[in-house]
């Protein structure tokens, strides 16, 4: 394996990791506050559509990216109202979000673009400014330039979330709400307020994850761009024991597996590519089977509070 191959492996891993990481962080913050969020897939899909559409019409990928965050928060607010205010079953409401997200996105794509795939939209720029990438041209490191600025943002969010959760009074309240909401309530803190905040933040992060797929990995939206990444993110969250840093490590693992399949496919070989493509999913299943029992799920996760 040459150095350029290794660089490619790194770049690819980061690329596949980023959307998972955004969504997994979204899952972490929502579930730590005690609201299950299995609607990540739907939110990502809607985010991906919004980013592609806004980026296409405005010509500004950043606008698309942030619009996706907003759209994610908007869509998840349905889940928030259902599960926090009306104490609905969070699995059902989350599933509804998955269908709704996919449905609206496909419908609006047809409406705006009259096809099932949105036209090519401007992509997010590289994390390295032009004058640096310039030096990479025609070297073994030239692929580095395709690392997106949003990838950096995702890792910044890992640190930010870690800091908020474990170092600030806000974090203390979020964690307490997910573990023992009655304790929080008797101290005069509003449980619904904390949970709304966290669920909306979760929607925003998952929306960013979707945006990354449609305006960084690819440059357009179609109904299949997300294809299960929301669920893999959910698995990464569990595998990472509901912590931002744990989620980051497991997303990197899943991203790495995904990139490996891509590389193997290119090389060609004994294993049929369609079988190889199942690797990340098999890995997800294995992770869940082996680790879910010993995990540290917040005690009040998924349980509505009066």
């Amino acid at each position, binding site marked *: 394996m040459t150095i350029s191959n290794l660089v490619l492996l790194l770049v690819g891993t980061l690329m596949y990791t980023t959307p998972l990481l955004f969504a997994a962080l979204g899952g972490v913050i929502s579930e730590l506050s005690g609201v299950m969020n299995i609607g990540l897939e739907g939110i990502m899909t809607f985010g991906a559509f919004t980013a592609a559409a806004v980026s296409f019409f405005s010509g500004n990928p950043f606008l698309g990216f942030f619009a996706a965050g907003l759209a994610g928060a908007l869509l998840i607010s349905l889940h928030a109202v259902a599960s926090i205010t009306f104490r609905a079953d969070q699995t059902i409401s989350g599933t509804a979000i998955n269908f709704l997200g996919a449905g609206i996105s496909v419908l609006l794509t047809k409406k705006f673009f009259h096809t099932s795939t949105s036209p090519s939209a401007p992509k997010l720029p590289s994390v390295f400014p032009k004058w640096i990438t310039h030096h990479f041209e025609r070297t073994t490191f030239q692929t580095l330039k395709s690392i997106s600025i949003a990838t950096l943002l995702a890792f910044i969010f890992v640190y930010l979330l870690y800091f908020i959760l474990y*170092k*600030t*009074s*806000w974090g*203390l*309240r979020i*964690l*307490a709400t997910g*573990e*023992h909401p*009655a*304790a*929080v*309530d*008797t*101290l*005069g*803190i509003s449980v619904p307020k904390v949970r709304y905040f966290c669920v909306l933040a979760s929607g925003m992060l998952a929306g960013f994850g979707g945006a990354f797929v449609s305006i960084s990995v690819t440059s357009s939206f179609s109904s299949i761009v997300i294809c299960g990444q929301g669920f893999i993110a959910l698995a990464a969250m569990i595998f990472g024991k509901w912590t931002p840093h744990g989620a980051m490590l497991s997303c990197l693992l899943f991203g790495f597996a995904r990139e490996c399949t891509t590389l193997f496919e290119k090389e060609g070989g004994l294993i049929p590519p369609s079988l190889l493509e199942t690797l990340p999913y098999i890995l997800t299943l294995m992770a869940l089977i082996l680790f879910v029992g010993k995990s*540290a799920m917040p*005690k009040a996760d998924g349980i509505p509070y009066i």
Partner: protein
Amino acid sequence: MVGIQKSFGRHHVLKNIDFSVEKGTIHALLGENGAGKSTLMNILYGLHKQDSGDIFINGELVEIKSPKVAIEHKIGMVHQHFMLVPTFTVAQNIMLGSELTKGLGIVDFKKANREISRLSEEYGQTVNTKKKIEDMAVGMQQRVEILKALYRGAETLILDEPTAVLTPQEIKKFIENMRNLARSGKTIIMITHKLNEVKQMCDYCTVIRRGENVVTVHVDDYSEQQLASMMVGKELTFGIEKKPANPKEIKLEVQNLLVSDDRGVKRVDGVSFEVRAGEILGIAGVDENGQQELVEAITCLRKVTSGRIKINGKEIQNTSIANVIKSGIATIPEDRQKSGLVMTFSVAENILLKGYKGRPFSKYGRMNKSEINKFASRLTQKFDVRPKDCAELPVKKLSGGNQQKVVIARETSTDPDLLIAIQPTRGLDVGAIGYVHKILIEQRDKGKAVLLISLELDEIMDVADRIAVIYNGKIAAIVDAAKTSEAEIGMLMTGGGKK
């Protein structure tokens, strides 16, 4: 609190209650389960809103809309079920909601630890601020709850059944602590139905019965008997009448049992004893000394590492729960709401949980409602489960004592060889406790073997024929209940030798 009224739905919980407390005193709020004690205090702490009536604090009319307002008025409450986050440290729990920060919401853990340590020493309630709640004994957790209130500047402390979860040793320490707090000017309201503690620590006592206040008295002027009569509204006799035991053949035999907990720590360490037909063996001990693991092993909820458990001479360890039941073991579990009953099911369904399989209650997998209800009605009458004709009522509508009667009715209906009762009177009032004890002795007199595990020393002393004291996973001694004293058992429970 003047003229407080409150109803939930059509149910009038509080009817015109007047309640006042003097600063710097310990005031007991005494009443049976369901008398409305907790509801009254939850209103004072802002968790419920009264339908009518006023609350005055230091002579000033206040409206307590939420716990936040209560905290602002320097009221703190320690709930019966602790409001502590198990995965948090002491300091994190105490400051939650009023955190010490360095600005921008960044928590100053160092300063918090220092402040809380200082506070805990000031009130003589020393705790390790960096320890996690889940690693602490219940008595220490309670201390943290009290500190949580003091940290918020509480002048009035409401304690809901504070001694229900404590061991005898912890209770002693607790009473001392409360006396000190009162001396330093704090006002303490204690919800309870334990008369001896009222006598030991309280200055005043308000008795509530069925949502109405009966009377407020100086504790010193009344005897326990008199207080009890006021509480239940009729004369009560104390003590249990019991004929001497007439033990026969061995029913349960435990030999050299070793059991580990979930973390692999050895909790039962070479325990041997036997229970004969027609006797009650009481297992006394401070909480967390292996009782739970021992019971779980006998009922096959937990694997044993080594050793034998025999029922009627047949080994049952490491088999299945179904086998345990088939062998003739019935259990009154520690937590009736969690593992004893299906709270949303009817009384009849709960009674039939074990016997639904065969005829006449089901035929080809189809349940026979009328037979089930007939059977359940017979049992509820026999055990005096109230309200009357409750067979079709969901069990959660019953009071704690009556729920326990349903469990007992079911467990004794299968005519078991061995009846295991774990903390069977936990959270019950005086009347119900007496009833449960009576039933256990009745079962004994019918020739059943009874194994009673309890943290209440009084209960063990009153009911058991022989007492096995468990300490640190080992049986410290097995003594004859008639020939021992509380002092001796107390010594053994805490690792002291036999006198």
